[in-house]
């Protein structure tokens, strides 16, 4: 096992004492975790974090809370926002910490939902126009991403004319064009055949390498694929005698030499990790 040179920098996202209940039913209980900026000398390395858990454990609820679409019952989610502002003394402060709000995260829903009345180009343009950094260069950015994601030929098609894989890529590009540092994906591997699955994994890795602060949060019950692509895995489960789900384990895959490895599935440590996760569920 070759140890890779890396350091963990600032906290990019922090969930603190997060809880969610519906009436008397506790869904999520005191969830605490943080995602750090991973710095690899010589690489533009983003972060890929997976939240795994059994079906019905509350993954989708956690996904909605993280995305800002649903307010938690208690607790908070803080993100480190890249927004250069000038202080009173004239110094420039680039990063600010604040609570997550709808629109902060790029969200890719499980069914890759897109507006049925907009063509691919129009949908992407809607997102690009929300990104001030792309002002005046929206069309160029769309051309660049669609070429990179093999979607140039679909620009004038409607979502219903696209395959599932194409719709997923459009959703990803749309959220990338919006310019959020965080990309939240709900079950991105569900219902994909083996060939498409490999392509999606490759695509997500490509996205994670596109920017130092790009952070992918994958919510999935496909443990093997989630481990193969991530640098950190959080396991959502239940603790005996306590209501609701919480993070029962954090696994640092970098420490185990399982992150950023192409042939990770062939490694013994990979199988051991999968077994370990399954035991936690």
């Amino acid at each position, binding site marked *: 096992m070759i140890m890779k040179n890396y350091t963990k920098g600032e906290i990019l996202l922090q969930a603190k004492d997060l809880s969610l209940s519906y009436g008397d039913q506790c869904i999520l209980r005191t969830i605490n975790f943080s995602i750090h900026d991973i710095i690899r000398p010589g690489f533009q390395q983003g972060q890929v974090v997976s939240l795994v858990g059994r079906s019905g454990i509350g993954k989708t609820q956690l996904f909605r809370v993280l995305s800002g*679409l649903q307010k938690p019952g208690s607790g908070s989610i803080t993100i480190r926002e890249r927004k250069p502002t000038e202080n009173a003394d004239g110094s420039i402060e680039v990063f600010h910490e604040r609570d997550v709000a709808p*629109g902060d*995260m790029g969200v890719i*829903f499980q069914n890759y*939902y897109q*507006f*049925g009345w907009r063509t691919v180009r129009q949908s992407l343009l*809607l997102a690009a126009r*929300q990104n001030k950094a792309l002002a005046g260069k929206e069309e160029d950015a769309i051309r660049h991403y669609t070429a990179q994601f093999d979607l140039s030929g679909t620009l004038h098609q409607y979502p219903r004319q696209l395959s599932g894989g194409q719709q997923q890529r459009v959703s990803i590009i749309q959220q990338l064009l*919006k310019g959020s540092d965080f990309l939240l994906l709900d079950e991105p591997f569900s219902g994909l055949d083996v060939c498409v699955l490999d392509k999606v994994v490759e695509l997500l890795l490509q996205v994670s390498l596109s920017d130092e602060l790009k952070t992918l949060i994958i919510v999935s019950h496909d443990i093997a694929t989630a481990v193969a692509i991530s640098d950190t895995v959080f396991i959502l489960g239940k603790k005996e005698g306590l209501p609701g789900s919480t993070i029962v384990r954090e696994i640092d895959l970098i420490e185990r030499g399982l992150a950023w490895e192409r042939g990770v599935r062939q490694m013994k440590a990979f199988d051991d990790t999968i077994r370990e996760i399954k035991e936690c569920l």
Partner: protein
Amino acid sequence: MVFGQILLTLVLWQSCSGGLIPQPLKILSAAGHLFTTRLLLDNVLVSLLLTLQALVYSVVVTLLFTYLSVIPFFHAVAQFIVKCRYLTLTGLIFVFTLLTKDGSQLKLSLLIFGIVPFFTTSFLSVILHINKQEFELCQTLGYNRWQMLYEVIIVGKADQVFEIVRQNFAIAWMMITMVEGLSMSEGGIGALLIKYNKYNDLTNVLALQGVIFGIGLCFDYLLGVLRHWLFPYTKL
């Protein structure tokens, strides 16, 4: 199949009827005669113009109240308009006569009053059944409330507004004959129909009914074609 059934009905009608109910060939001949005169064309144009005018005003009023129905005060107003479907026009004609300045305005306002509750009911139902994900996608894109309203309700539901217009054109077209009877000086297909009916000219009455039916079907088809052309995704 349908053509065969129609043909069979017409043959049976032709062979069995007599007396007071005119035979199809007689009606056809009367319709042919009507088409050769300017009378029919002029009156049809008057009626069509009035119907289209009423449709445009009704759409504007409907959209205004349904878009504003997101505000609690206007929600109650929109709900009241929906309930107005159960009001009959008969007792209200005098009130409308007092409120309007001439026959033309009376007909137009009655048509609008008759159409708007049905438009509002259909459009509120469309808004009520909007997929939650449409709003959530807007939220993830960082849209504010007005951007959401524009994207999801105005742009996103434009095709359904058009479909509601198509479906409710029938109501307007059905009402036209009734309101034209209230002020016959400007003519119109309804006025013509009442005139023939007054003299028990059943052949011409049925010929005119056929013309009204045919125009209604043509418009239904044309609006369908126009909808597919304007909103190509509705064909998918």
